[in-house]
């Protein structure tokens, strides 16, 4: 590789040495050996145990709190109520600043807004004492009527959930509307009148829990120099640091060790504020580990949404109208309220860019249940269930194969959609021409592999079972354009290794590994030469954190830039040492090689630079801000079997064909899609929260809230289309979220194919299918 070509040859070449190989995860060995790598594994001497007293009421004013008995208990160190913490409004959402979510939250407030809302913070010497203290705190509540049905949250006369004067950024709190959004292209009603076939339907998606295995956990302490340090199981260490400063006016260092899954559930500040309050008050280290019940009831869920959809087409299969009228339930606080709703449009509508008229609008409302937040897919799975199901029905009515119909109307390379410009996250979006889109390959190669056409021809019913197949299309994004920024620092060592310092937050996805692969590719060496340090706000450069499918794209591009600049620094140093012009040098296998065949290793270069020649440390930092958000695409095929006697649905086969550009690490990329698929199957078939009439979540553990277990998962297959995104690092786009967009519509469409029932509400329960089958039989 010659210097003038640096970078350019790499970006256009698809012959990689390190990228597009499945190297083992850089943290894999520590994890598989069970090393002490998670927040609660760290022994911090003298740490207090922090527990939270939570509201038993869905909506109430705290009249007074009497903690005297609790404080009298030996070993109780402090009890903090709303009087003891700063009254600063903020949002728990970990987003770019200023956040598009309303500032409607306090560390502790004099009002509680859902069962589980925090009332007091207790710190004690042991867990047992802390738990006993919780029982000794007396609280007098003035119980208020609660808003539990989100479809009526903004009806006249409903109680107002956010009547605090400090609230800002909410659309109309007096009517419980956290956010509102609307857009349109052309006139949908006029266009609908011209359509030959129109389909309408109302679709409901619920509010599942992330159910990551590691509960939310944080530890805080003053380091020997008095700097507040927070170790946290978070996806957004830099946002945590910023929000802690906003609330408490204190500078801190936030360290994210390994975290036991997040899926968006840790893209918010949860436990950090409580331990910080205790450490600031007592000067002592504080540790708070949520119970599973707290993780279920007092963090975040997905936003439940309702979409009224109208789609219309002309006889020739041309899609003319998409009209989506939505309603989203953000629960007690407006975390990610506006942005998840906008993503429900911005990450679905551009897929069908041939459409004439589009409207997307709706409210995001407050209710007195656990706040919703970021959750993998971020609104797109909710709306794609509605949109793709409606399009499937439209294709059926047109007498077209759904693959043909969806392909005919979907986006291709070189095209754009006005939606990209109109809809961003919380504001306008960014125009973009699609440079990589292999949706056609995904659909056609997928159909072949799945035996789609043969399977569709088979008889549906065999004895007491019916089988059917469904297909669903999806897109997502890669980062929030013009907002998301990530940095990377690379430092060369005298043993030929490099320290790669990134703010990017590996939440189990493998981002530390794929970023090391990107750096290794650009520096012509191997992944094991990289020692990765990520997500320590005092050590690593800024990164927005792990969300919006941005890490591979944004942090990956930052890492690639840093590595390319490091390559130049190495060549420059080598040219000085070897006394050869840079143009005659190139990098290969951890060495600089000259045209005349002389070579010097990276190790020799840095050793010379340390001790004997133009002494200096080679280190570079680069940043990357995304200008566009190239969507990955995916087509999924589901085959279901329905027990006609019980209504039970089994997903026998699920194939996803994915265009994520270059998969930097194919095995890890596949794992992202497989994991998302199974979470999607959970959302479709098993996961549902049940609330009692007072708004208390009944399904607050793994016993009552069922996530898919090993036996529930049948045959899942993932394939990658050959694709290359020119703006991505070595051609890569995102892959972590898109897998959750298709299971709901693909399975619902397959159920229709099998038994002719259009399911419009998730989760799909056996009894619903059973009764629908019965009704069908009756009406025959």
């Amino acid at each position: 590789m010659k210097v003038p070509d640096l970078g350019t040859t790499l970006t256009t070449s698809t012959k990689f040495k390190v990228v597009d190989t499945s190297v083992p995860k850089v943290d894999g060995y520590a994890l598989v050996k069970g090393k002490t790598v998670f927040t609660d594994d760290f022994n911090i001497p003298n740490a207090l145990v922090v527990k939270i007293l939570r509201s038993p009421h869905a909506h109430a004013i705290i009249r007074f709190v009497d903690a005297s008995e609790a404080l009298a208990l030996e070993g109780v160190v402090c009890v903090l109520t709303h009087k003891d913490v700063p009254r600063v409004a903020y949002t728990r959402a970990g987003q770019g600043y200023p956040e598009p979510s309303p500032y409607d939250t306090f560390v502790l407030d004099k009002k509680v807004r859902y069962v589980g809302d925090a009332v007091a913070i207790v710190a004690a010497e042991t867990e047992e004492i802390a738990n006993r203290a919780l029982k000794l705190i007396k609280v007098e509540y003035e119980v208020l009527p609660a808003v539990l049905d989100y479809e009526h949250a903004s009806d006249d006369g409903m109680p107002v959930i956010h009547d605090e004067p400090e609230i800002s950024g909410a659309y109309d709190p007096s009517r419980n509307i956290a956010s509102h959004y609307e857009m349109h292209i052309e006139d949908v009603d006029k266009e609908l009148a011209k359509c030959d076939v129109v389909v309408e339907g109302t679709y409901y998606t619920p509010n599942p829990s992330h159910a990551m295995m590691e509960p939310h956990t944080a530890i805080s302490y003053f380091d020997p120099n008095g700097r507040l340090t927070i170790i946290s199981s978070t996806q957004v260490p830099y946002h945590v640091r910023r929000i802690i400063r906003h609330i408490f006016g204190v500078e801190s260092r936030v360290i994210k060790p390994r975290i036991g899954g997040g899926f968006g559930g840790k893209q918010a500040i949860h436990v950090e504020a409580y331990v910080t309050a205790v450490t600031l008050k007592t000067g002592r280290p504080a540790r708070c580990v949520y119970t599973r019940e707290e993780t279920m009831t007092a963090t975040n869920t997905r936003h439940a949404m309702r979409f009224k959809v109208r789609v219309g087409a002309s006889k020739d299969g041309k899609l003319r109208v998409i009209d989506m009228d939505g309603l989203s339930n953000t629960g007690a606080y407006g975390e990610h309220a506006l942005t998840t709703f906008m993503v429900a449009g911005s990450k679905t509508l551009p897929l069908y860019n041939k459409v004439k008229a589009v409207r997307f609008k709706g409210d995001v409302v407050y209710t007195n249940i656990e706040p919703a937040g970021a959750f993998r897919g971020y609104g797109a799975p909710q709306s794609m269930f509605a949109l793709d199901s409606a399009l499937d029905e439209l294709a059926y009515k047109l007498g077209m194969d759904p693959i043909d119909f969806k392909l005919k109307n979907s986006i291709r390379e070189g095209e754009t959609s006005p939606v990209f410009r109109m809809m961003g996250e919380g504001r306008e979006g960014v125009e973009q021409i699609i440079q990589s889109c292999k949706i056609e390959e995904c659909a056609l190669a997928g159909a072949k592999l799945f035996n789609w056409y043969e399977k569709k021809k088979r008889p549906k019913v065999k004895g007491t079972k019916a089988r059917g197949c469904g297909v669903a299309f999806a897109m997502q994004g890669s980062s929030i354009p013009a907002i998301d920024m990530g940095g990377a620092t690379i430092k060369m060592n005298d043993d030929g290794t490099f320290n790669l310092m990134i703010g990017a937050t590996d939440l189990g996805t493998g981002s530390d590994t794929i970023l090391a692969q990107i750096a290794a590719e650009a520096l012509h060496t191997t992944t094991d030469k990289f020692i990765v340090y990520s997500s320590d706000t005092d050590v690593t450069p800024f990164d927005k954190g792990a969300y919006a499918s941005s890490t591979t794209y944004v942090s990956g591009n930052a890492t690639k830039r840093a590595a390319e600049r490091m390559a130049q620094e190495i060549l420059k140093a080598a040219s000085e040492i070897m006394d050869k012009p840079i143009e005659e040098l190139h990098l290969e296998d951890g060495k600089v090689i000259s045209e005349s065949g002389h070579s010097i290793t990276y190790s020799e270069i840095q050793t010379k630079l340390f001790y004997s020649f133009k002494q200096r440390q080679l280190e570079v930092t680069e940043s990357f801000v995304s200008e566009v958000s190239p969507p990955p695409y995916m087509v999924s095929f589901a085959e279901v079997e329905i027990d006609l006697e019980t209504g039970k649905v089994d997903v026998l086969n699920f194939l996803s064909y994915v265009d994520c550009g270059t998969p930097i690490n194919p095995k890890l990329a596949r794992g992202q899609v497989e994991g998302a698929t199974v979470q999607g199957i959970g959302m479709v078939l098993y996961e549902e929260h049940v609330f009692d009439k007072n708004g208390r979540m009944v399904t607050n553990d793994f016993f009552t809230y069922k996530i898919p277990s090993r036996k529930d998962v049948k045959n899942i297959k993932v394939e990658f289309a050959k694709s290359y995104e020119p703006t991505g690092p070595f051609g890569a786009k995102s892959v972590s979220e898109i897998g959750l967009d298709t299971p709901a519509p693909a399975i619902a469409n397959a159920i229709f194919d099998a038994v002719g029932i259009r399911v419009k509400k998730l989760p799909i329960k056996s009894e619903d299918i059973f009764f629908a089958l019965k009704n069908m039989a009756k009406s025959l």
Partner: protein
Amino acid sequence: MKVEFKVNDRKHSIEIEPGELLVETLRRLGYKSVKHACDTASCGACSVQLDGNPVLSCRTFTAAVDGHEIKTVEAFSKEGELSAVQKALVEEGAVQCGFCIPALVVTAEALLNENPNPTEEEIKTYLNGNLCRCTGYVSQNHAIMKAAELRRNSASVPAGNQGELS
């Protein structure tokens, strides 16, 4: 009260509280690989081997293991060398966040001791109590099949050390 038991061949003789659960004791003793992820015996993240059989340490009283032998994941990678199960899990990309992994290794090792040649269905059944929210299970089941094969092919490895790769 006082109890004595072995963890990974190391003897512990300690005072415990009445009603103390094994998961708490083990974490207190520094075996942090044992995770506590639920309160309803539903997730399997706390699994350890008790005399070679997988048990939920969140549902086992420490008093009950007096005189017995516990194995945590640390027992399976002697001198840093990974067991066949561990190696296959890393190689197959079956370790995402890793929170479920120590317990998965411990349980899978017990399975392969009982049944060196399990079918995928047998793996799913035996490990059904080990929840994983990240991987969707596909790669994990695959890795365990692969580990079983590796173990069978290296049957010359001395007993008790099965699956160790050198």
